[in-house]
């Protein structure tokens, strides 16, 4: 199978698919330096003025700050709920296990628009005003599974004897958790948290239905900015900044999950 010829064929095809994956990204970065407001080819010329404009423009920065807050709160709640669920699955056999597993996974299998309109109907029914809080509730719902998957995978490989030894030495459950279990699942927690944070930060389908009038997250700001052709290169500048900021985060997540075997968990959304 790995004759020299097939090696070249697969190498070439893989190269083309990678080109397909990266051409749009390259264009985004290139047009962030656009001299004009028209995203036309050939490239109109270089300028860094959109980064200068972005630096002085409060709107995208406020939106980004709001997105950071939402991602932070959603991640915190998802960490607590997802970790607890993972412990229940790793340490207990109980009735309805499959059903709970299905309910945890469902928000990530079904498209965001379903979660969004379901919660929108829910909040309409309960008369809750749409705000930052409703967005956090929506995001948490699909972030739980990310933490759950990561922590459960780690717990399955962790021998129960460590915790038992700690209990035999007289530690309380909290102390065992604090000094024995937590250090061994710490990297899985960080990886799960990074994934939740990143997914929440870029989320649009759920957010669209749950954001109040003054809850303009960064993706909602970007969606609005597309309508105004004068700010297009500025949007590209925003996207380039996001990519540059998230690169170390990807590297961290990948590094933390390297011993998990199926590195695919990094995006098993």
């Amino acid at each position, binding site marked *: *199978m*790995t004759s020299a010829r097939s090696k070249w064929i697969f190498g070439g095809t*893989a190269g083309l*698919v*990678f080109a*397909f*994956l990266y051409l*749009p*990204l390259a*264009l*985004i970065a290139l*047009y962030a330096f656009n001299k004009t407001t028209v*995203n036309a080819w*050939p490239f109109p010329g270089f300028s860094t003025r959109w980064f200068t404009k972005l630096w002085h423009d409060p709107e995208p920065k406020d939106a980004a700050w709001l997105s950071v807050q939402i991602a932070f709160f959603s991640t915190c709640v998802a960490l*607590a*709920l997802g970790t607890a669920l993972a412990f*229940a699955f790793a340490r*207990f056999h*109980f009735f309805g296990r499959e059903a*709970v597993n299905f*309910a*945890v996974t*469902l*928000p990530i*299998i*079904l*498209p965001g*628009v379903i*979660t969004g*309109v*379901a*919660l929108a*109907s*829910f909040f*309409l*029914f309960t008369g809750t005003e749409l705000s930052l809080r409703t967005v956090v509730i*929506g995001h948490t719902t699909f972030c*739980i599974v990310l933490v*759950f998957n990561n922590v459960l995978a780690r717990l399955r490989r962790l021998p129960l004897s460590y915790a038992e030894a700690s209990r035999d*030495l007289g*530690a*309380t459950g*909290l*102390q065992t958790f604090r000094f024995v279990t937590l250090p061994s699942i710490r990297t899985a927690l960080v990886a799960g948290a990074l994934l939740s944070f*990143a997914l929440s930060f870029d989320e*649009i389908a759920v957010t669209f239905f749950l954001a109040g009038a003054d809850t303009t997250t960064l993706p909602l700001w*970007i969606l609005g900015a*597309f309508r105004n052709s004068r700010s297009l290169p500025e*949007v590209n500048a925003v*996207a380039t900044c*996001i*990519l540059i900021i*998230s*690169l170390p985060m990807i590297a961290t997540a*990948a590094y933390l999950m390297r011993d998990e075997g*199926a*590195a695919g968990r*990094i*995006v*098993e959304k």
Partner: protein
Amino acid sequence: MDGYLGAGQRLIGGASRRALPWRASRFLYAHPRGRLALLLGPGVLWLLVFYLVALFLLLLTSLWQQDVFTAELVHRWTLSNYTKIFSGQDGLWLRVFGRTILLAAIVTVMDIALAFPLAWFMARVAPPRWRTLLFLAVVVPLWSSILVRIFAWRTILGSSGVLNSMLQEIGILSHPSSAFLYNEKAIAITWAYVWLPFMVLPIFTALEKIPDSYLEASRDLGAGSWTTFKRVIFPLAVPGVIAGSIFVFSLTMGDFVAPQLVGGGSQVLGGAIKDRFGVAADYPFGAALAMLTLLTLTVFLTITSRAGAKESL
């Protein structure tokens, strides 16, 4: 190991205290059911209220009506939202439904075709020490704004875009063509692009697990490359293909951003639902469309999981 010793010393100190945490912990140690309830309760309650009850309310909303004048939701039962899908507006909604399923199927097949050779290269052809790097290279695009990645296709396919300029330079086109953007083909390409990593990763994971000996055995038994692919590699990759297809099909069925940005006027289910809950403000009908999407995905999930189960026998 230092950490363990240090922890041990602290533990001895903790045991002598008869504080509330200690008693709570002892109670939970003696009552595993209580421990389970404490671990399971909050998460299950959250998902029950904010997902399952919410889905149930979506179902109820689809069976309610909207007051024509005040646009307020009236809790009066009706099936008219569903009959409207099947007979309303000269079959417009059935066409929207058919178009969405067709696009989702095409995009899924496109992504399988693109992902398979790439995943094979990553898992079996490239030197193992490249693997992490190649893996990261597939993941990186997911971490930049999805909206901007979708919008980039306007820059590529637009009438003053990259593709048009290049085709004119080569001499294939004499003047810019508007045939590339604002149609269903543009939506399909954009979707295939944004969801591709979700197909590559599960196939890669499946292919990575195939033992070399299987391929050698196949060759020793006289099978050619094609037979080995058909009889050994593909069946073993099916779980990965199914996992990827579930993601791609489902994401495609629900997305409203790509149709809005590169799709021109062509309506799909995701966009229609979004409009009912947004500008058109017709929640009951939007809820009915969402239930239709949910039903379609349930059927799809059932079929694919059956196919997967059969393959693994």
